């Protein structure tokens, strides 16, 4: 297997949205939102983006206050938590807008907690207004619906990215980029269907298929050659129960 991040549709949209936020015209709001169901590769995508853009990553907590949030941001920027909020905002802005450095995006995971207190959103707005560094909030599938109900918050978010999971063409792309043997279209369809478009499971399935193909000296593997072998290890088998029901 080749260990690399395949540029699927979700990934491309996410990277594009960060680029758009970084190159936004002045006067445009600099907040983005990323959401999606668990297991679709959001966190991996965020880690990739943080490394690519030298971003700052913080995780929101349920007990976060504005001071706690600013303190965490200060710590991530190599400073210490200060007593006054205004001092911390000044420190963050100074660190982010150092001369000769590219703007660094700020990623906030579990951003649902930030929208509970409007003060936090205001402080974040101050930071991106003063430092020109965009802020990308990451949340669960319900976050977008919650935000859309609040006009004041929704107006500030200019990039909405939903992780929808992999479709068949994405699965094909992942197989082509990460797998060292070629998969036939019927096996790809089988893999996509069996794994429920879950990227983690697709990778495990691809690894098994690759190993099987290499062991049998196959450069291209078809569905007939693979047969009905399990693709990953935690597939539940309810044989006893199924027989009883039928």
């Amino acid at each position, binding site marked *: 297997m080749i260990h*690399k991040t395949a540029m699927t549709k979700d990934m491309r949209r996410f990277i594009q949205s960060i680029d758009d936020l970084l190159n936004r015209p002045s006067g445009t709001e600099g907040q983005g939102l990323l959401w999606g169901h668990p297991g679709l590769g959001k966190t*991996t995508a965020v880690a990739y983006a943080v490394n690519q853009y030298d971003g700052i990553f913080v995780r929101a907590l349920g007990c976060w206050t504005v001071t706690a949030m600013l303190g965490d941001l200060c710590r991530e920027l190599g400073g210490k938590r200060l007593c006054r909020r205004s001092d911390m905002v000044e420190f963050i802005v100074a660190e982010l807008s150092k001369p000769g450095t590219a703007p660094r995006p700020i990623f906030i995971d579990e951003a649902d907690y930030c929208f509970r207190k409007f003060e936090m959103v205001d402080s974040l707005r101050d930071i991106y207004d003063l430092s020109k560094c965009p802020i990308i909030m990451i949340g669960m599938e319900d976050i977008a619906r919650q935000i859309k109900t609040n006009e004041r918050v929704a107006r500030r978010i200019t990039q909405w990215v939903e992780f929808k999971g992999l479709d068949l063409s994405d699965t094909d792309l992942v197989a082509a980029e990460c797998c060292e043997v070629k998969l036939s279209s019927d096996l790809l369809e089988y893999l996509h269907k069996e794994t429920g478009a879950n990227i983690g499971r697709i990778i*495990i399935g691809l690894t098994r298929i690759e190993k099987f193909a290499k062991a049998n000296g196959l450069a291209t593997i078809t569905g007939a050659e693979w047969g009905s072998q399990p693709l990953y290890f935690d597939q539940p088998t309810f044989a006893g129960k199924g027989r009883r029901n039928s």
Partner: protein
Amino acid sequence: MHQSAWRSMRILKQWSVPGIVCTIPGANFNTVAKFVASLERHAMVEKIAGHVRGRVGEHQLYRLYPKIANDPTYPQVCGLCDQIISAKVCDPAVKERNKEEERQRGKETKTEARMAAAAASFAGPEISMSEIEAAEQDFYQTGKRAPLPPFNADDYPSTGWHVVPEQLKRRLGGANDAT
């Protein structure tokens, strides 16, 4: 590369080596694996139980120790052994040894400094070498020690906190008078 790997470890919380490699653009698997191994050697990451060896496509999961995970920059020196993290063995005895050496060095430096300070502050009566030699010759010839020079308190100025009590001065003066 190490900083990127460290960032990914902090973001992903539970991770495998291939998982970390995927999140770093242009990363090398061996470099990341070596980095993880060195962190594990110095007890900065721990393995998560439940991994079954030999299962294709599944990898050993790790996590950072919570105390270290808050640090935004990757550790370069091990807190247990005081060595750089690329050191092949993490031996806490090395740290103890270093500490002891440091302590000894500090002690010696302190003692030397004290002695130098004492020598600088001490201003006793001036005795010339000829007087000392004459006293030695007397001792060899007669077998009797030369009498001590009369104590004069002004020869010992009480610099700093040390002050000779008046009673002691009187006693010393009396002894000298008796001889």
